[in-house]
């Protein structure tokens, strides 16, 4: 009898030690995972925040000008040191990038919302057929596809034939990215709507479309909006597909049928620049992008929390 109890005590001690070790490992791993996150946020907040000023939001690209040279005349300003030209002054802003990102991403959202939501309804509400399974599989593959591939496809299918980089080509490339995400989130959310709700609508003699559009979809609306917002945030942060489709533009342009700027492209170009002033702008655009994603996520959290309550 005693022996049994002692054996139990031994395994108990070992079990509790294993438990402590495992817990330590998880805490350590979490800490390691959080380090880069904190670094990213801190860097972007500190460096990016410092780059923000009025010009940043209202001005477009200005060629870098050495300190001590008057940008209007191109002549040295009196009273500055001889070796001043080694420094370059921060100039201009990224209004063209903000406008480009908003126009391209919102257009992409307008394309992908109806397609994605209807596809999601098809996947969730209609009986499974091999065709359904095939579509679902395609969505999963497409949403996991490297975004540069989407860019290449957009370049080959739209930019080449049309002969020009354009904002609309970027919107279509982003649509390729956003549709599968929206379709699958819509499907998952609709599947959470209890079947009893559908049956209640059908038992009143409602046709399928009426039940789906006026009862099932409104019940799941917050979830669908959440999916759309997250797809929007993802689209706004994509760089590779846009590089190959809208190319970038140093001037403010509202023309969706010509090359446009976008914040991720500006970030990419400016961070590679040899001029510290332009590197500063890159941190600024990174800051704005982070705030966009953060804002959208907060919006999602607030709306879903309110509905749940």
């Amino acid at each position, binding site marked *: 009898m005693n022996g049994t109890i002692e054996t139990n005590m031994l395994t108990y001690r070992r079990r509790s030690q294993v438990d402590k070790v495992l817990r330590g490992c998880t805490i350590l791993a979490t800490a390691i995972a959080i380090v880069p996150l904190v670094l990213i946020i801190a860097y972007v907040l500190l460096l990016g925040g410092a780059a923000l000023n009025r010009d940043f939001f209202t001005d477009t690209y200005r060629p870098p000008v050495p300190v001590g040279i008057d940008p209007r005349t191109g002549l040295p300003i009196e009273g500055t040191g001889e070796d001043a030209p080694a420094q370059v002054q921060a100039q201009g802003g990224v209004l063209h990038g903000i406008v480009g990102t908003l126009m391209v991403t919102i257009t992409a959202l307008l394309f992908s919302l109806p397609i994605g939501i209807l596809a999601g309804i098809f996947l969730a509400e209609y*009986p499974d057929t091999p065709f359904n399974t095939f579509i679902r599989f395609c969505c999963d593959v497409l949403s996991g596809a490297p975004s540069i591939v989407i860019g290449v496809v957009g370049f080959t299918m739209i930019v080449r034939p049309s002969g020009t980089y354009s904002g609309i080509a970027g919107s279509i490339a982003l649509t390729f990215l956003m549709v599968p995400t929206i379709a699958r989130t819509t499907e998952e959310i609709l599947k959470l709507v209890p079947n009893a*709700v*559908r049956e209640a609508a*059908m*038992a*009143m*003699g*409602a046709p399928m479309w009426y039940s789906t559009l006026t*009862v099932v979809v409104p019940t799941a609306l917050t979830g669908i909006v959440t999916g759309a917002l997250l797809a929007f945030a993802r689209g706004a942060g994509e760089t590779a597909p846009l590089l190959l489709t809208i190319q970038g533009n140093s001037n403010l342009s509202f023309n969706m049928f010509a090359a446009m700027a976008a914040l991720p492209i500006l970030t990419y170009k400016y961070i590679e620049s040899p001029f510290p002033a332009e590197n500063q702008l890159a941190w600024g655009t990174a800051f704005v992008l982070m705030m966009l994603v953060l804002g959208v996520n907060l919006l999602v959290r607030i709306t879903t929390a309110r509905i749940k309550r």
Partner: protein
Amino acid sequence: MAVATQPALATQTAHSMTVRGLKPFYGKRLAVQAMDLDVRPNQILALIGPSGCGKSTVLRCLNRMHELIPYAHAEGLVKLDDINIYAPGIDPALVRRKIGMVFQLPIALRTRNIYENVAVGLRLGGIKNKAELDARVEKALRDANLWDEVKDKLHLSGMALSGGQQQRLSIARTIAVEPDIILFDEPCSALDPISTLRIEELLLSLRQRYTIVIVTHNMQQAARISDRTAVFMVEKTDDVPIGVLIEEGPTEQIFSTPKDPRTEDYISGRVG
């Protein structure tokens, strides 16, 4: 509506159903052996039996809800008065407007307020006149014994009501479109005893105008409210369970002198 234009019966409001050789299937599996059943006008018919005996399946065949389940279908003849609801060309949606259904879980449509929860079926039927909608919503809520409790909060969400109230709201939604028959699928099994009592009173008062079929697990409930009772059992052939209608008759007779010994066993609590 094709179903609406039928010859007048003895009593204007009462309708009957005739079931002959009904065989509900899930995929290729027969769920209930071919069965006959008569649903008499202005009566409450209770379907009782142990779990898995197919009574809910049979109920769902009566207004073509069964076929909404993937791969499910039914064979046989089901007539509302003298129209075969499974005849080709009959729209299941119209059948369901004529034969309403109330489910086990009360369903308050979350995105609609109390008023709209009742009005939804009426709007679906094309009624747009505000005064007429108001009148019919009020009448349905009164008939469902709910009006006095909700008349001051018609604009509130149906989710704000208690379970019993939500079930009466579901009933109001069903009777608002004035169906010929109302099917109840265990309407009280999610409710407390007092709410159950109120629903039972409601069923008895609805019987004066409607023909009712109710599936219930509660034998006392069947005994209290039904005029006739149909008893289902599960039989196993080659280890495959299949539902069988073993006996149907006046409720009094079923509960006092059942013909089938299995009915007696079930009623006295020895099986199921």
